[in-house]
């Protein structure tokens, strides 16, 4: 199996969706002729003609256009170039798309996919850096996933496109061109949902998602050298969230940490902790959230490193859960 980048995996998934379903459209700012500001949608215009098109810089029109086209039976895939831009048009997602099925008792639906990308990268400004998944996950009616590997960038996007409800796929700009991996492009299209255990462990369960997965995996390797066995769960979908997989893991390890790049307060990590605690899982240490503090995101790389948990921060705090006396 050939290795491709995360961005190429997204591109391949879009190509497959456009090939398999003539009702699929792809539109957004600069996605067609320019092939996307990050090159993710390259060549799709050439292959699929007017089903792939550029739009004005009008997020309400993009998202509202998707809602309307989806209500009429098409399967629009739209790009919101940066997740931060979704706020310009949150109405179309929260008040419009998310209500269509419920308020019509299923007579109308909005099977649309919103692709976006998020996270801080060196120099990215405060309006192009936020991790905002919890804001989407708070809205019943929207589905939300954050692929962390090329295979998941492919699989989750196809699952989203096949879903009969609005789905927000939050990709990682940081991973687009930096992460390569084998991608099986011939498998069946999976349904939405389901976490993945990336690494088995016995002392501690860590739940994470998005590019933070790779930071956590590095931290787990650091802890392994200290004799601490960390189980790493990539949530992949935060709506629907796979509570069972997490509870099963924590039931074995007795310890739960959640790590995300999003801000601490109201972050989805709090939800994960609450769900596990509410299930009555016996814990041998208080649950821990490792997140970006409640800050704005600065542009300078040194400031970003100070704001967003990196490998050493994550490793140190995880270690303190297992051996609090030695690291306090």
């Amino acid at each position, binding site marked *: 199996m050939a290795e491709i980048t995360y961005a190429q995996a997204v591109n391949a998934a879009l190509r497959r969706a456009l090939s398999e379903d003539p009702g699929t459209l792809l539109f957004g700012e600069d996605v067609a002729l320019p092939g996307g500001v990050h090159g993710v949608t390259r060549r799709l215009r050439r292959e699929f003609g*007017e089903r792939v098109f550029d739009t004005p810089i009008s*997020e*309400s029109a993009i998202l509202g256009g998707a809602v309307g086209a*989806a209500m*009429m039976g098409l399967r629009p895939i739209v790009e919101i170039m940066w997740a931060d831009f979704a706020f310009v048009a949150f109405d*179309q997602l929260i008040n*419009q798309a998310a209500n269509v099925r*419920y308020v019509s008792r299923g007579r*109308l639906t909005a099977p649309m996919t919103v692709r976006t990308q998020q996270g801080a990268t060196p120099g990215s400004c405060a309006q192009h850096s936020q991790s905002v998944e919890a804001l989407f996950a708070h809205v019943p009616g929207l*589905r939300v996933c954050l692929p962390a590997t090329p295979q998941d960038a492919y699989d989750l996007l196809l699952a989203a496109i096949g879903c009969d409800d609005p789905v927000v796929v939050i990709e990682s700009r940081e991973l687009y061109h930096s992460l390569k991996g084998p991608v099986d492009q011939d498998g069946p299209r999976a349904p939405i949902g389901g976490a993945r255990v990336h690494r088995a462990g016995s002392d501690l369960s860590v739940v994470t998602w998005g590019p933070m997965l790779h930071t956590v995996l590095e931290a787990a390797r650091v802890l392994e050298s200290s004799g601490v066995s960390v189980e790493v769960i990539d949530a992949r979908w935060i709506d629907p969230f796979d509570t069972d997989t997490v509870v099963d893991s924590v039931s074995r390890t007795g310890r739960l940490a959640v790590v995300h790049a999003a801000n601490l307060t109201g972050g989805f990590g709090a939800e994960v902790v609450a769900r596990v605690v509410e299930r009555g899982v016996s814990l041998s240490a208080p649950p821990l959230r490792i997140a970006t503090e409640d800050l704005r995101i600065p542009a300078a790389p040194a400031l970003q490193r100070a704001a967003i948990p990196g490998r050493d921060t994550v490793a140190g705090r995880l270690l303190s859960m297992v051996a609090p006396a030695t690291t306090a």
Partner: protein
Amino acid sequence: MPHPPTQTALADLAGLWRIRVFEETVTRLRVEERIAGSVHLCIGQEAVPVGACAALDLTRDAVFATYRGHGWALACGADPAALFAELLGRETGTNGGRAGSAYLSDPGHGFYGENSIVGAHAPIAVGAALAARYDGSGRVALAVFGDGAMNQGAVHEAMNMASAFDLPVVFLVENNRYSELTPIAAMVRDDDLVSRAAAYGMPGSWVNGNDVGAVRRVVAEAVDACRSGRGPVLVEAHTQRLVGHYIGDAQTYRPRDEVEAARATEPIVVLTSALRAAGAGDAELSAVEARARAEIAAAAVTALAAPPADPATVKEHVHG
């Protein structure tokens, strides 16, 4: 120009009366507290939905309206009993009680719904028109909104994108001169709203929104332009509401005699006078009103007898 006493004009009058009586009945049910919540009536504005819907092919066209939308639902052909039931929170409502007065829909009749966010449905209508480009339906999307929505960013985005892509959207402004409780004239430099069409490079037409025949003609021209691929059209229909923004609105912001003056030019008065001038008799005209009253009264009775929305279903349809 007087209307000839044609079947079309008599049908228009029936359409106006059905909406008028429906809204009067809603007022009573709201005052009696059988209907809960905010209710926005279109009394005085009935000619716009009746004329516009007569110009559409509702087997394929799609109407997107505002919270002042009962008249639009009726003009599209929604069952008045199902509409009453929706307002009453009954299981038999168009949306099973999930929408209420301000967000109801009936897609089986081309009514893709009211919207309670001002102007938010304009981009959605653009999406419905966009779909027509690919699905071969020949659909035209009609987005109707008030003068206040002309100051919403989403409406600008919708008009621009529809114009840029030549999409078949009729943007219809029901200008009743009040953006909720504030005069539109105080919120714009130039209250000639239809003149904005030129900025988007689309045709714009002004119409007397109290003249149902004129509305039908102007909207029919707009629909033809859309259907033939010439892109969107902006239509501004001047009208007035004879009631408050919502039931209970004291309207302290309106000049005292304004509503009284408007009664002389409201759509039922205008059309009835025209029909009389064209030779229609009092008995014929009264019969139109009486039939509407009987139909709507029966619909209300049906709705009031329907079971309430079932709480056991409240968690259904969040997802597919």
